[in-house]
């Protein structure tokens, strides 16, 4: 009898537990997961953690994926104009927009946002630095931006140091999220406390438990269309397998398959109904950087031979099971001035060997260090290193894969001494300057990224290209620069852009990923059933 009663108690406990873990998602709730917790909610201190800024704040413009191309659309403004010299932009804010705390959005908030990025001088200073007086504010020689004029609550103008036709696109970057001057300036540690994270966007942050989860709820003062998702919970789940089980167990509504192994995607998700799989190209690319100060890599023939010895298609099929697209230039597919007729590097190991011989190198002579960031590299990226190393071996080139933990990796790369590495760049805004200027726009950028590209005239042209206002001329110049840097100089070996895959749970009707294929997304672009 005792045994029977004990058995009943155990069964009741187990049934109680089972009931407790049934799917009990409330209406309007969306649950998703990230592997690593965010560091901050403040764009002045991060270039990675954009989910909260994208959903809580608005920007003057937004970039959206149109039918055939990417479009920069007005967001917080009703109108803007550009002076004939391309230097001064005049804006009119939409009337009646309020922050989630009820205070009115004014031109002073926009000015404060620009100046704050420069005064903090940590991350995302590039765009406000383009404004006249930006450098002085950053060096603390001035308190306000000379090039920022507030006319009244809704009118203001921004004067740039040089014309930049891509300026509206730049202003759509998450970095340019407009903050509430009053709350932000009074906050002791803005970016760490939900109560201070006040924006005009569709959501409010209600909690952030470090290392566990954060929650966004609908901002009922939001000026735009009310979203279908009324509450978003983002959990920190470091283990990819745990994320997988939670999704299949209906504890998550969207899973980012970027965190999953290709084998798991093939085995579990490829058989899902097509309407539950969402795929978007990541606007950006993965490339091999070759340091032109290195003994062998300074020879353009060696760099070209390396380009010819790498079989990017094999990497795409072998590692990503086809879930990536070939990129041949610096300017990625989908970005303004991307060129479809780049002819760089057809896979030809024998041709590579012949080129090395022509350059005077014996077989097996060319050797260099291929640096791997073991802290940040995903399993797929580690495989890419193995593929590259073995592909180069077939052409008689030795790429020694050397592992570095994150800090050592960053230090070596920033010193300009890293011999070569594979990296991925995702576009923050739809303008070629975002990638080309960052890598080839200044001597400092060229050194800090360990490229050490030596042609000063090309560096000057890349810098000047930002100022070309005429779209046709600008496009032609960027395309010419892309050809010069890749086809002639082999300064980079462009390889591929991954497709970003998500799987939607039963409760989600539709999902539009962020235009550049970021892992961060707009919760308002999710529709629940």
């Amino acid at each position, binding site marked *: 009898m005792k045994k029977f009663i004990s058995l009943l108690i155990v069964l009741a406990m187990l049934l109680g537990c*089972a009931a407790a*873990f049934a799917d009990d998602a409330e209406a309007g709730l969306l649950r998703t997961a990230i592997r690593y*917790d965010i*560091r901050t909610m403040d764009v002045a201190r991060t*270039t990675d953690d954009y989910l909260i800024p994208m959903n809580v704040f608005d920007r003057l413009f937004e970039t959206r994926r149109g039918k055939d191309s990417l479009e920069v659309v007005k967001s917080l403004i009703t109108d803007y104009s550009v002076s004939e010299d391309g230097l001064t932009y005049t804006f009119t804010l939409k009337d009646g927009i309020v922050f989630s705390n009820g205070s009115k959005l004014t031109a002073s908030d926009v000015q404060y946002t620009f100046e704050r990025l420069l005064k903090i001088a*940590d991350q995302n200073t590039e765009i406000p630095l383009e404004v006249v007086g930006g450098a002085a504010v950053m060096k603390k020689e001035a308190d306000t931006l000379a090039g920022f004029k507030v006319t009244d609550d809704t009118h203001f103008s921004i004067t740039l140091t040089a014309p930049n036709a891509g300026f509206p696109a730049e202003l759509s970057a998450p970095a340019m999220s407009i903050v509430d001057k009053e709350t932000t300036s009074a906050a002791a540690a803005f970016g*760490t406390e939900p109560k201070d994270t006040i924006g005009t966007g569709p959501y409010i942050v209600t909690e952030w438990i*470090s290392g566990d989860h954060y929650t966004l709820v609908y901002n009922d003062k939001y000026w735009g269309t009310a979203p279908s998702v009324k509450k978003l919970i983002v959990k920190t789940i*470091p283990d990819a397998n745990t994320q997988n089980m939670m999704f299949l167990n209906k504890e998550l509504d969207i899973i980012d398959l970027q965190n999953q192994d290709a084998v798991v995607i093939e085995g579990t998700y490829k058989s899902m109904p097509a309407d539950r799989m969402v795929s978007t190209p990541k606007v950006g690319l993965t490339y091999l950087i070759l340091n032109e100060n290195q003994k062998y890599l300074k020879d353009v023939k060696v760099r070209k031979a390396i380009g010819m010895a790498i079989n990017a298609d094999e990497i795409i099929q072998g590692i990503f099971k086809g879930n990536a697209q070939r990129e041949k230039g610096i300017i990625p597919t989908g970005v303004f001035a991307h060129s479809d007729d780049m002819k760089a590097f057809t896979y030809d190991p024998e041709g590579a060997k012949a080129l090395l011989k022509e350059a005077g190198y014996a077989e097996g002579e060319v050797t260099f260090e291929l640096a791997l960031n073991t802290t940040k590299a995903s399993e797929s990226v580690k495989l890419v290193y193995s593929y590259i190393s073995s592909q180069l071996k077939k052409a008689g080139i030795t790429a020694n894969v050397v592992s570095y933990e994150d*800090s050592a990796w960053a230090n070596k790369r920033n010193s300009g001494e890293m011999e070569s590495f594979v990296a991925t760049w995702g576009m923050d805004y739809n303008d070629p300057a975002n990638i080309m200027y960052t890598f080839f726009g200044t001597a400092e950028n060229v050194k800090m990224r360990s490229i050490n590209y030596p042609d000063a005239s090309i560096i000057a042209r890349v810098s000047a290209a930002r100022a070309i206002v005429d779209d046709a001329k600008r496009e032609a110049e960027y395309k010419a620069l892309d050809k010069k840097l890749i086809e002639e100089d082999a300064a980079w070996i462009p390889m591929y852009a991954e497709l970003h895959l998500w799987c939607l749970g039963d409760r989600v009707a539709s999902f539009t990923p962020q235009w550049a294929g970021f892992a961060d997304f707009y919760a308002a672009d999710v529709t629940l059933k």
Partner: protein
Amino acid sequence: MLRTLARRALQALVVLIGVVLLIFVMLRIVPGNPIETMMGEHANAETIARMTKEMGLDQPLLTQFFRYIGSAFRGDFGTSYSLGKPVAQLIGNAFVNTLLLAVFAAVFAWIFGITCGIISAVKKNRLTDRIFMGVSLLGISLPVFMSAMFLQYIFAFKLHWLPISGTDSWTGFILPAIALGWNSAGQVAQITRTTLLETLQEDYIDTARAKGRGPTGVLLRHALRNAMLPVLTMMTIQFSGLLSGAVITETVFSINGVGRLMVQAISGRDIPLLQATALLATTVVILGNLLADSLYSVLDPRIRKEG
């Protein structure tokens, strides 16, 4: 006995100060600039120099050390470079989870381990003994991540009895505690069995039997009490190990604990967070050893007398 304890506490304090100094120096002499790591892609020389000054990393090592010790005594361990929050707050939140996990794991390990050990000793060389020792051997030999994934798959994913991850309720600690405690349980079971079998051979056990004590009385009041001395010591040391070494379990079950925080600190070269988590782990181990020593003194009359 008090004098012995005081002497051991003093030794522990000296070791702790030595470890603090070692951690402090090591983190500063390893190659690489933590500010550059923190700032990532967008670092420039000017900003790196400014941040280095703001964080006091341009000061002589000795000045930095005494400042750190002074602040640490006030409970101020600085602000995490990688998470932007006060280290004391981050560790405080995470330590609660790790402590709960360790307590649950220890309770499981000790109850399961001691019970298995006793039954195995009593049923020596019979089927029950072999099954229980097999289960404990499995716990000792199976890597924690394997047992964690196995338990998670069966009891959370397939049977839906317990949560897959998270600690929203106490039930969230059950699977991670078993995964983490299984190894300790195996060790406790094995040592309980061995010491109990040895004790049961002692003369005073025969005396107790001759005096007419029943088998249960002999086992629990005479044999087990004496056999528990090494088991208790082991359990105390195990507990400090559980507290400071739960990284894998915390990762698999998404528990925001000190282990995960430490991994994050290492990968981000987050000096304030790394110093504080390392200090915490060291303190826990030292305290665990101190407690084990003290327990030994309390429970063993011979040591008590010597002291």
